[in-house]
């Protein structure tokens, strides 16, 4: 049917990773990510990776593949700075990633990279959000969310899209956190442990906020009503089943959501 299944499988890996959202205003581009811990004992997996002073990425999917791609991106950025004494335009970096990702989709014995990236960057043309796929496609986005249950985040972002351009940075972050919150199952909240924030802008180098640094922003959206409020106690038991496979579509409000465990984060 003209489908390359290996690529579709790789894109599945991205959909299984935990959610991450990217949005931009006139002056800044931000990434918010939900960090997942593989067990109670493990630390929450880092989702946002700095690439250069003006670019950062957040990942969804196979962390190992993400590491490879981000190393490559760092190398490209550094080489460009060394040769041309100026930051690499984000569009050029993303197309370099696309070209690199295409090779294993066509070469014998190789497999596509099982990771999707949200690239946030700032260059002479302003702030950018790009999405990259294992299929080697890349998309210039006004805002985007990828990962598990990201459709809810995309819906939120689409609803509020017109506000983003003129937003202040704090407002933009609040929107990002709210969008991320949409992807959470009931009873799970954004905490300083599971939430990560990355910001880049006109006079701001790419900065990552983790743990306590996020608290300030979480406080801004505390107490706000969620569209998917926690159900009464008798339903709570259904939420904690793990390892039983995931519902293919995003669950409707009040349906229990099941967390997927594994190497994807």
């Amino acid at each position, binding site marked *: 049917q003209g489908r390359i299944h290996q690529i579709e499988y790789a894109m599945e890996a991205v959909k299984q990773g935990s959610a991450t959202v990217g949005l931009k205003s006139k002056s800044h581009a931000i990434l918010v990510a939900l960090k997942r811990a593989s067990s109670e004992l493990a630390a929450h997996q880092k989702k946002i990776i700095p690439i250069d002073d003006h670019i950062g990425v957040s990942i969804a999917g196979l962390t190992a593949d993400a590491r490879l791609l981000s190393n490559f991106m760092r190398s490209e950025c550094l080489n460009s700075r*060394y*040769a*041309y*004494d*100026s930051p690499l*335009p984000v*569009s*050029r970096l993303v197309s370099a990633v696309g070209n690199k990702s295409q090779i294993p989709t066509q070469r014998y014995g190789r497999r596509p990279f099982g990771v999707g990236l949200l690239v946030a960057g700032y260059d002479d*043309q302003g702030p950018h959000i790009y999405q990259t796929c294992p299929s080697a496609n890349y998309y210039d986005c006004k805002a985007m969310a990828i990962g598990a249950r990201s459709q809810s985040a995309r819906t939120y972002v689409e609803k509020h899209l017109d506000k983003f351009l003129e937003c202040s940075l704090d407002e933009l972050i609040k929107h990002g956190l709210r969008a991320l919150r949409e992807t959470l199952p009931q009873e799970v909240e954004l905490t300083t442990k599971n939430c990560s924030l990355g910001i880049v802008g006109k006079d701001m180098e790419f900065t990552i906020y983790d743990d306590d640094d996020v608290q300030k922003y979480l406080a801004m959206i505390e107490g706000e009503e969620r569209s998917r409020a926690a159900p009464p106690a008798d339903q709570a038991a259904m939420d904690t089943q793990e390892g039983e496979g995931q519902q293919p579509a995003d669950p409707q409000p009040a349906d229990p959501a099941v967390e997927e465990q594994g190497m994807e984060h």
Partner: protein
Amino acid sequence: MEATFGSTEFWRNGPQPGALYKFPGHVNTTQASQIGAAKRTLAPTVTGTSVLGLCFDGGVIIAADMLGSYGALARYRNLSRVMKVNDSAAIGISGDYADYQFMKSVIEQRVIDEECLNDGFQYTPKSLFSWMTRVLYNRRSNFNPLWNTFIVGGVQDGEPFLGYIDKIGVAYNDPTIASGYGAYIAAPLLRDAFEANPKMSLAEAEKKIDECMKVLYYRDARSLNKYEVAIVTKDGTMIKSPIVSETNWEVAHMIKGYE
């Protein structure tokens, strides 16, 4: 080496009468004849002399005469030694003309490739300057220099930029730049003019350049009284060609001692 140390026959491989004895531990040296055709530029063939660069209010001027010297012979008298790169950058070249032609084709191809990308980014004077520095320094480090001095100029973020890159990878930027004999003769003139009036107009700058090119024609024995000028402003790059200065040789008869 094994043979000399391990064996007990010390009388083998001794010096031959009339031949150059290869002492133990000698390094093989290859002579030019063994290499074959020269693979590296050891001396320039057709050369260009000085290039001048001057910043004015809102842009830069780069000037170079149109002579290609074949040693002491003024052989090619209509060579262009300034080149437009794009709407924000231009370069002027002194030194070996063939190496310039090579660099020119490389730069032109890169500009084309960038146009094909069509993504709104183009080489800025500083990025061009930085890239060329890397290339020239790399070549010198491999003992295979491009025997040139490049003057890179343009407008970046509204500010004029002028840079100098040597065949040995020396690179710097300054509001006034001169290569070759220009560094000795014209640079002081350009510096005085710039320090007196950093925001001079295009007309004043052109006048100053003409004055310097005139002095160079009087004093540099490998120069020509016909030159070109590349002017870069926020409105783009243009090349004015040819310009001939008015010279005055009235005092010539007073100079004695060089007959």
